[in-house]
């Protein structure tokens, strides 16, 4: 089956079995191996991608559901500068600076999830950030330096915006991987229940 979607900003077409996992199509057919498989059952978040800006676990999403949507993987998070140099997203920068990555296998998922979470809830505090990240397991860091990094990135975004941060909202225990936070037109599943 032929599918078209936006992938990291570029129109993309694949001809694949529509029931294959998005994770496999991204990794195997499109050689985007930044998305990782830690569990294959929607628990670890290592396979996180953004669909229309919302984090989902690509191991649970049949590739057919990408059709027509805007898909972002970790490979699309850093931008290219005018001289072709890599410009890290502020969340990626903060993770490096604050020691928020150790073995790194969780990091692509965490960077994507956090980047989306901070867009949606720029005023999230430490406690709320912990909830927003709860769908992305990290076994190495104890999360402390990840949360430190995100608090810093959030503060810098707030400063950059030169305005009081937007209302937090959503302090309901929901993680960023949560169907309640998404556009109803966005593809279902791929979330932590």
């Amino acid at each position, binding site marked *: 089956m032929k599918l078209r979607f936006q992938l990291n900003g570029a129109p993309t077409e694949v001809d694949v079995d529509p029931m294959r996992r998005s994770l496999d199509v991204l*990794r195997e057919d499109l050689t985007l191996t930044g998305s*990782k498989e830690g569990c294959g059952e929607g628990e670890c978040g290592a396979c996180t991608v953004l669909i229309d800006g919302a984090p989902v676990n690509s191991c649970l999403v049949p590739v057919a559901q990408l059709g027509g949507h805007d898909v972002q993987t970790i490979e699309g998070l850093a931008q290219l500068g005018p001289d072709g140099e890599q410009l890290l997203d502020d969340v*990626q920068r903060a993770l*490096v600076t604050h020691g928020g990555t150790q*073995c790194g*296998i969780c990091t692509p998922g965490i960077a994507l999830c956090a980047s989306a979470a901070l867009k949606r809830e720029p005023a999230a505090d430490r406690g709320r950030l912990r909830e927003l990240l709860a769908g992305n397991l990290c076994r*190495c860091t104890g999360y402390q330096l990840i949360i430190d990094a995100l608090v810093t990135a959030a503060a810098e975004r707030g400063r950059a915006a030169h305005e009081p941060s937007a209302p937090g909202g959503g302090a309901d225990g929901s993680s960023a991987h949560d169907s309640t936070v998404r556009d109803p037109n966005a593809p279902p599943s791929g979330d932590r229940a």
Partner: protein
Amino acid sequence: MSSASTGTGNSSRSSDSTGIGDSPDRVDGVPKVTGAALYVDDLPAPDAWHGATLRSEIPHGRFVALERDPDFDWSDVVVVTASDIGGRNTVALLIEDQPALVPVGGTIMHREEALALVAAPTRARARAALKALRVTTEALPAVTTLDAAFAADVKLHGSDNVLKQLEIHRDDADIEAVLAGCAHVIDSTYETGAQEQMYIEPQGVLAEWRGDTCRVVGSLQCPYYVHKALVILLGLPEDQVVVTQAVTGGGFGGKEEYPSMIAGHAALLAKAAKRPVKLIYDRAEDIAATTKRHPSRVRHRLGLDTNGQLVAADIDVALDGGAYVTLSPVVLSRAILHASGPYRIPHVRIVGRAMATNTPPHGAFRGFGAPQTTFAYERQMQKAARLLGVDAFALRRQNMLRVGDSTATGQVLSESVGSQEVLDRLEDALAQAAPPVPARLGSLRSPVRRGRGLAFYFHGSGFTGSGEERLAGRVSVACLASGDFEVRSSSTDIGQGMLTIFTQIAAQALDVPASRIKLSEPSTERVPDSGPTVASRTCMIVGKLVERACTALAQRLRDFATESSLDASDLSVLAAQHVAQRGELSETCEHESPPGVQWSDETYTGAAYPVFGWAACLVDVAVDEDTHEVTVERCLHAVDVGRAIHRRIVEGQIEGGTLQALGWALLESVPYEDGRVLNPSMTDCIIPTSADAPDMETLLVEVPYAHGPHGAKGVGEIPMDGPAAAVAGALEDALGIAADELPLLPEVLEHLLADAPLDEAPA
């Protein structure tokens, strides 16, 4: 003894001109945050087939027959059995008792034993082929608990199922008589469950043959362990096996020994398939089949006098080793060497036994036996403080080891003893205002009971006894034509930051910018054997070798400058000149133990470790009286690391280890039934999420070790040792229960409370 204790978890960056003690960006940071880092399953291998493993599914029995379904299309499948093994059918480690594949007619010792292997062009085809293999087995009665192992009605190993017994006798006194004379004796038995390492990247390797040479790339901690195992399994000369570590998504000990198994399997499949084979476990297989922390039972009798002075300890340690010897003797050794704790006790007897059961072998996991015995002795100290009505800190201070004291093996502690410092630091931090409790904890449903627990412990850095001498690890540093320097060591970065720390150490010793330091790929064809990446030894032992090799190389470059009348101000320029004029220049250093380190394996006396790290952890908990859910409200951890080469990395090590310990204490459970893991999925075998984790207050204490690089000693394991005891002590404080087992799941607390119901007023 100087103490330079500076900085806290999230504040100061003490820096000096060398960068030692600073927190530069990790050298592998950018590729990891951009997804560019290639882990083994990311490596391009377009021609590779996919492997899969046929497992026994009975805990004990005989492998009678293997048949192929004649209706299945076997044309694009290879099947490998024990008869395809060219060398010895063993996963070589300490002894050769574990087969790589159980031969037909052989004995099955656990449910996850590999009977046969398949490879096919796709994972789906490989899985289908597995289903088309028919296994006939004959069941034998199985031993699946420690009690059954001790009863020895079924004999799995020798006549008593004891895989290894080790003893420490501090003195010749009759321990029973000494205990009988003590004013107080606390006699308790502690049990801890298995714990899954749960690195987020499952185990995996990619194997291929080029001519007669077998090349394996994998997610692993110890390239030379795998190399040794493959040489024996494949029956090849050493230079025809090349093992390379890929970027590795966590290990924590779980990728110390098991990679030798999976690498052997992939190598056999690649040979049969005549093409590369990827063997990547899925999560279920990884949890079910690979090693975990040893379940334990420790009976601890502690005798004190009326003043709270420790007089005697009699400790019996039992570990469930699983079906084969594997690393259990070494884990048991570390367990008993830590079992009497960081205390002065005149009379000590410790007997440890690792028992054989029909479960998949238990193995290395951060702490390596010490967390189990630490749980026991610190629970004992908590009980002692309650019994005597004395302050928890005071009782520790009264009995702790200091410089000049000796441990249970008679090791006199001559330097870098941070016992006093970690307790001081913790008490100071406690005296300051607690950070605000996150709002979400304010929503705890009342009634809530609160409690506080303290644990104090030590952990030996590096290999036990004469291990480092026997191993004689080596590191080379070479000048490159570009003016860069290449550090060649077999240490692996498994997330703990070795690449960055070695870069800092080398740059400092050569007085060049960090960008001039290149770390060689950890491949057995490129690097000498620096020993495995285990035992909190990488920074302290191998890092020291890096420093020495760099210092020696710097001297040779300066000599060259003098001889050739060159400017010696920039060693990088000199290095390039040397390569251009005289060819490659490199230095290799081999480990030398500091003088006076003597150890006897026969009597288990002497210097068990080159040096110890010291730590204290304090935990405040809140327990919901209705649901028995536990929230860690505060967690302070003071750790003496000698010297933090890279503060952030050290903090990250401590915090990661602390959360693994809190998880082990409160929610990580691996139940078995008939030798099978009952919860082989991340959904059921849970680990802490960011929402479960407390904000941690990490206190770095630096009491330098003269023989470590810049004073550094081990930090990798110690944070795992103590927090569980602190949690259990806090629960005892909150609920008045004897929290003597781990994990303390809500249902366990409910059960304990049924025996000792809460009184009316909150404690």
